[in-house]
């Protein structure tokens, strides 16, 4: 199955730098198209600031809607990077190598996008600084550390900082490589960024140590970020649908589900757009799909337990809320779509080896997961708010306005555009990881069979 093709280091350089040292023809048009959407999104934001949040579909009692849903969605996507890079690095999974960079990048850009949503969503975005910056300015009031909304920027800020560091450390060897292959201003840029990388053994040792240390340090942050986002909801006793102890691990495992799926989507795109068939191979999709089967099933089990315990107390307003969420139009429809796209299409499909090894199949199933995961957050946030307490008089409903839809589209375009811009200047697949993988791959002869093998360095006792 392992269709290894040995490439020389020259070939690796040439093929992986094809989007960086040259510009593919489609690149300009893609960036331009996305730029138009991004600008339209910024105009929409300006419109929202100018008119007030009345232009959204929000009301009383549904004070949070698709904007917060999309915030949670992007924070979820951001769990891709550390899952792939840090956890798989610590567990020494070889197949992570070609996707680490892209996954970390997705983390960085999706976090930036996620962070912008609470700003867009706030009533007075121009005063946001009082909320997120831990400083008392002239007001004599610090942000309220008891508020989960203050934990959020702290956790996400830490995660973003760490992710950027992580990305940068892993980028250093490739920056050195690029510096040696460019002239003019790009050469000066890469010289500056590569911090004098020459690839001697001391630098390699430091780079590796930094990678492992950052992996280990990032793991608790990785878990804490989505947990804290989930506590925005879970600590509120007034909203029965939110006040559940399972939320933190449930959100984290759901985030991994959607994040890893997003990485699969991106891998398929990378393979198609830059023609990196030699690097992103069906075996990588296969391994990710196997991981996703476990993650997806665990996430589904959490979903079921969450539902089980939502009925546990059999209290009137909880039942009314679940009745709306699961059985009433249009929520029932969304709920079914959520279950089908989030679990029942992709996970059983991945059980088949033909699906796992087919790039179009993996592309569409991974997109399906993310549709489902967006709906999951939507179905948690909105129905719970619209059936809050036993006072029937104040129950309500919600449908998103065009403005809010536009911001969702904007977020997708914003992340896509940033990825493309990054790919123009830096390689999306780490060159050095590719070379290291080749150096470490080996074969073992057992009788007449030849088995693919990997090399593990060992400490001498």
């Amino acid at each position, binding site marked *: 199955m392992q269709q290894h093709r040995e490439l020389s280091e020259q070939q690796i350089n040439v093929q992986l730098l094809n989007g960086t040292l040259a510009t593919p023809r489609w690149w300009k048009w893609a960036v331009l198209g996305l730029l138009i959407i991004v600008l339209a999104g910024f105009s929409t934001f300006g419109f929202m600031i100018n*008119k*007030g*949040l*009345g232009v*959204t579909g*929000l*009301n*009383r*009692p*549904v*004070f*949070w809607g698709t904007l917060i849903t999309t915030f949670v969605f992007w924070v979820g996507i951001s769990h891709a990077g550390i899952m792939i890079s840090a956890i798989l690095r610590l567990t020494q999974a070889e197949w992570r190598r070609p996707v680490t960079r892209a996954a970390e990048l997705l983390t960085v850009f999706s976090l930036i996008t996620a962070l912008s949503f*609470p700003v867009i*969503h*706030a*009533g*007075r*975005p121009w*005063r*946001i600084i*009082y*909320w997120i910056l831990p400083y008392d300015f002239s*007001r004599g*009031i610090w*942000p*309220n550390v*008891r*508020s*989960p*909304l*203050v934990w959020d920027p702290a956790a996400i800020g830490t995660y973003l900082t760490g992710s950027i560091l992580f990305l940068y450390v892993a980028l250093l060897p490739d920056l050195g490589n690029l510096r040696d292959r460019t002239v003019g201003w790009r050469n000066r840029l890469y010289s500056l960024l590569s911090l004098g990388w020459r690839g001697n053994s001391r630098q390699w040792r430091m780079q590796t140590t930094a990678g492992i240390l950052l992996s280990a340090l990032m793991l608790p942050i990785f878990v804490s970020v989505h947990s804290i986002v989930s506590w*925005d909801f879970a*600590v*509120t*006793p*007034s*909203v029965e649908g939110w006040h559940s102890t399972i939320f933190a691990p449930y959100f984290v495992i759901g985030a991994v589900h959607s994040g890893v799926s997003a990485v699969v989507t991106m891998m398929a795109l990378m393979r198609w757009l830059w023609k990196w068939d030699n690097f992103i191979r069906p075996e990588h999709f296969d391994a990710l799909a196997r991981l996703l089967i476990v993650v997806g099933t665990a996430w589904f089990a959490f979903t079921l337990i969450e539902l089980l315990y939502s009925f546990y107390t059999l209290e009137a307003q909880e039942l009314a809320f679940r009745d709306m969420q699961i059985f009433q139009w249009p929520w029932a429809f969304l709920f079914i779509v959520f279950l089908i796209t989030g679990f029942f299409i992709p996970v059983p499909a991945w059980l088949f080896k033909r699906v796992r090894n087919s790039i179009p199949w993996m592309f569409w199933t991974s997109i399906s997961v993310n549709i489902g995961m967006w709906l999951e957050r939507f179905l948690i946030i909105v129905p719970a*708010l619209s059936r*809050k*307490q*036993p*006072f*029937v*008089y*104040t129950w*309500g409903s919600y449908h998103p306005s065009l403005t809010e839809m536009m911001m969702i589209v904007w977020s997708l375009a914003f992340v896509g555009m940033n990825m493309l811009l990054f790919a123009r200047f830096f390689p999306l697949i780490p060159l050095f990881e590719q070379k290291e993988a080749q150096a470490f791959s080996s074969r073992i002869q057992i009788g007449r069979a030849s088995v693919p093998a990997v090399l593990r360095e060992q400490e001498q006792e």
Partner: protein
Amino acid sequence: MVQPAQQIAAHHWGMTVDVDRCTGCQACVVACQAENNLPINLEEHFHQKRAFEWIRVERYWEGEFPNIKARFIPILCQHCENAPCEPVCPVYATYHNDQGMNVQVYNRCVGTRYCANGCPYQVRFFNYWEPVWPEALRNQLNPDVTVRSRGVMEKCSFCVQRIRRARIEAKRDGRAVADGEIQPACVQACPTNTLVFGDLNDPNSKVSKLRNGRRAYRLLNDALRTEPNVYYLARVDNDEAEVAHG
């Protein structure tokens, strides 16, 4: 520079709502609207579910026609001692003051609306639009009350401007604030004396006596432990059979 507390909190404001007396006339709602510079609730605001009613009269139907009864319950900010809205605000725009009131500082608010999600009574309101009044009504705005801009939360303040004024006047005259001297707009407007406002720290105030009575209860307090300062007095039906039925 932190000032030493100049006076120990002598007051602890609270209210009783006698559900038995309420006729659902909505006078309190209108009075509050006028007193506190609430935006005009147009029909479309109700359709959008964005109307402002710092105090609202909820109406529930009990029984089947023809033995049907309308039940009214006025609901306003409960000024919880243990308010779920307070700890969640990232900028301290809402906090508990030393007189038992849950107060909202409009100028601090950034509009996260988290407090509104935390409030189980749904008495917090968000300014989705910049409020506008017809030219003819510009001069009727209460000068003692801030006009809120778009993007901030607001809610019942127990007519804090009236409390302030009464305390200043009492201090000027060198006397204590008398029971019943302070009347929030809704209390003042209520024709059936459903609403009673006063100092819960004063055992002889009318409100203290009422809340210590047998009929007193607090909304959602058993489950949520919010410890509201608004007490409700249960409805008493003459027809025993129907009480058992309902």
